[in-house]
């Protein structure tokens, strides 16, 4: 019985590998040429058409901006669901969380305070850099937003009292996320008014790199606020009911 239990996952993993090999084999072994046309097109004309030196940014905010909008909505739904689960878990447990985890005061150490408090602002600045220069260097809204969220989590871990800086409060983060998503929707809808269509370049005369930079900043704000709202809510729920 015990041997059968141990063999189950291994058999499952082996059959999964065999199945994926079966599916991937025609792709690898087939003699049809690998499709190179999109890559060649982007390499030749991507930078001139979008104005972005980083072709990854040119693709995900220029050619495939619809996908990015969908990803932003998926993230919004995921964060909403997580916040709902955290809030209901806090309701079910009530005030018992304080005693079970020993309270906030006992878990404070100087090491945690100093390292997270000093490192937080540096990580925040790096996140904003990754966010704003996504059209030139590797990075962009999603990556920068997640780095910004790590910085906010650092600041929130390093606070000494429950009244930390305003950027680590759940209300502020929720407002920033909602507001930036509203501005994203307005920005992608602006093309309908100016005549270039939904998600089109809103200012027909301007370089398309402007819309990439603006969308990078907005998406970074939205992603950073959403993920840090989730983490701050979890940390706050472990310490005190919010």
């Amino acid at each position: 019985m015990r041997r059968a239990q141990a063999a189950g996952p291994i058999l499952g993993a082996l059959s999964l590998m065999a199945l994926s090999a079966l599916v991937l084999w025609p792709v690898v072994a087939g003699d049809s040429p690998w499709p190179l046309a999109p890559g060649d097109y982007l390499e030749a004309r991507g930078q001139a058409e979008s104005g972005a030196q980083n072709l990854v940014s040119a693709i995900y905010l220029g050619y495939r901006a619809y996908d990015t909008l969908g990803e932003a909505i998926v993230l919004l739904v995921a964060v909403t669901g997580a916040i709902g689960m955290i809030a209901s878990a806090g309701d079910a447990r009530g005030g018992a969380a304080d005693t079970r985890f020993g309270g906030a005061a006992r878990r404070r150490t100087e090491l945690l305070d100093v390292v997270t408090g000093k490192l937080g602002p540096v990580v925040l600045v790096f996140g904003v850099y990754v966010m704003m220069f996504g059209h030139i260097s590797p990075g962009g809204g999603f990556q920068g937003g997640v780095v910004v969220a790590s910085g906010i989590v650092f600041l929130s871990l390093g606070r000494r009292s429950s009244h930390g800086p305003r950027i680590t409060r759940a209300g502020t983060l929720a407002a920033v996320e909602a507001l930036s998503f509203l501005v994203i929707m307005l920005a992608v809808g602006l093309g309908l008014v100016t005549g270039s269509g939904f998600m089109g370049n809103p200012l027909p005369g301007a370089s398309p790199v402007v819309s990439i930079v603006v969308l990078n900043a907005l998406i970074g704000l939205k992603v950073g606020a959403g993920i840090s709202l989730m983490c701050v809510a979890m940390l706050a729920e472990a310490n005190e009911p919010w």
Partner: protein
Amino acid sequence: MVEFILGLVVALAVYSLRSGDLLHGVLALSGLSLLCAMLFFLFEAPDVAITEAAVGAGVSTVVYVWAIKATERKDKAQ
């Protein structure tokens, strides 16, 4: 180099599956994400490397550790 990192990735994945302590498994997953970020960087995909390092090694570790803290051990013996 690449083969060495890939071997470490597999070893960490097996360890995180087989380890008895959930916290050890989460830390192994965090290290696995860092190694994957290094691999992405070696294969000249710095955008993906930044994402993997920030999401895999950073945020998801925070979420897992919180989930472990918020739940109880099933077997008190260990």
